[in-house]
């Protein structure tokens, strides 16, 4: 391989940072082409069943923080915006956070694994806001 997989993740980071959509690297008999998808925001799919938290970056997924013991488990109550994990691209860490309050129902991606834009990471059951809060929101 021209580049190790770790380096490709970092290369993608450089491309995103510099606004490069596509790049080709040739060396010896090998050629590597990297094309970025359209901007992928950390997405929540709520169409059916539990909500999914998907990766918004390319790198290694960690539950919690790589320097800390993991304290999250199935059933952990999550606050809206709470950081539940990180994606490491080289030395850089980006947060994976809960888009709404809820309960962690499944870990869909083995921590320590490489993830791509849009890889489903965690499933959680959103907490329905209490009726009085819902009313206030509508108002």
């Amino acid at each position: 391989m021209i580049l190790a997989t770790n380096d490709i993740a970092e290369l993608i980071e450089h491309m995103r940072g510099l606004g490069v959509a596509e790049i080709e690297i040739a060396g010896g008999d090998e050629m590597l082409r990297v094309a970025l998808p359209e901007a992928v925001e950390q997405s929540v799919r709520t169409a059916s069943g539990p909500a999914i938290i998907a990766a918004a970056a390319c790198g290694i997924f960690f539950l919690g923080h790589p320097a800390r013991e993991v304290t999250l488990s199935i059933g952990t109550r999550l606050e809206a915006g709470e950081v539940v994990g990180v994606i490491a691209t080289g030395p850089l860490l980006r947060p994976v956070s809960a888009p709404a309050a809820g309960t962690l129902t499944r870990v869909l991606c083995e921590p320590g694994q490489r993830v791509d834009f849009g890889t489903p990471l965690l499933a959680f059951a959103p907490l329905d806001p209490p009726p009085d809060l819902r009313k206030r929101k509508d108002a």
Partner: protein
Amino acid sequence: MIEILSASALATVQDLGRTGALQWGVGTSGAMDPLALAAGNLLLGNDEGAAAIEVPVFPFELRFTEDCAFALTGADCAARLDGLPLLPWWAHQARAGQTLQLGVPLQGRWRASRAYLCLPGGVDVPQVLGSRSTQLRGAFGGHEGRALRRGDRLRAAATNHKNSASGFGLVPPALALPLQVDGVAAMRVLPAAEYPLFTPEAQQAFWRDEWKITSQSDRYGYRLAGTPLEAKTAIEMRSHGIVPGVIQVPPSGEPIIQLADGNSAGGYPKIGVVIEADLWRIAQAAPGNVLRFVSCTLEEAHAAEREIVSYLLRLRRLADYCRFPVSEQAA
């Protein structure tokens, strides 16, 4: 602006040190963990050497009196902002009135002992002899030449920092650049001038033994406990210039590592010197823990220095992308 709420916690303002003044007997001072200070500054888009607050005693509390971005590096103190947990080695955003609490460092995957709080543009204190570091011995530099205490108010040099985006962090260097021997934190050491004057047993013990960091260890230096190191014959020397990292062996035979606030001169024989690239590892090793010395050549010391430089360069590039999203660059 921030206001210190802790009584007196030996926290000081430090940058990368006051170099070039040893000739006047002025020690370097500066962050004990220069890597944590530099990394925290890079998270905010500051110069690597911008002044920050070094916190060695916990808990430590302060209040933000204005909206302010900040970065926390060094020991993971399970920090909380108005009670909400914060990630370590991370850029955060505080609102006016919020209180930041640093607790006792976590005993997680990496036990460290000093935390760094970086502010946009650095902590705004005057430069003295080319540095903003607190020189405790001479009582100058930093904030009024002393450790911070309750009621002190400090300002960030860049209050309205457009470019600091919070919400991202870094892999701590202890995980990115680990160095252990038999599960014990290790530091690379160059043999120093008087190394050949120690007995072969002492030389072997120096590299082989675990050295316990005694409670007489602080910014001035670390006093280690272990099997005393004996010289072949008594060594008497005139006082001569020394630098942070020098490992002296006083008559007791138990080594002393001179550190950031150490003397600029000393007369004890020197068995070795911890390479500059590993001084941060000592800084984060807490009293009560043990450490090991690993022999290293000058070439290896230079290579270690280059490794640090390229680690920081990589951090700067990647952190800059997070602060300058493409859309804003175009705007």
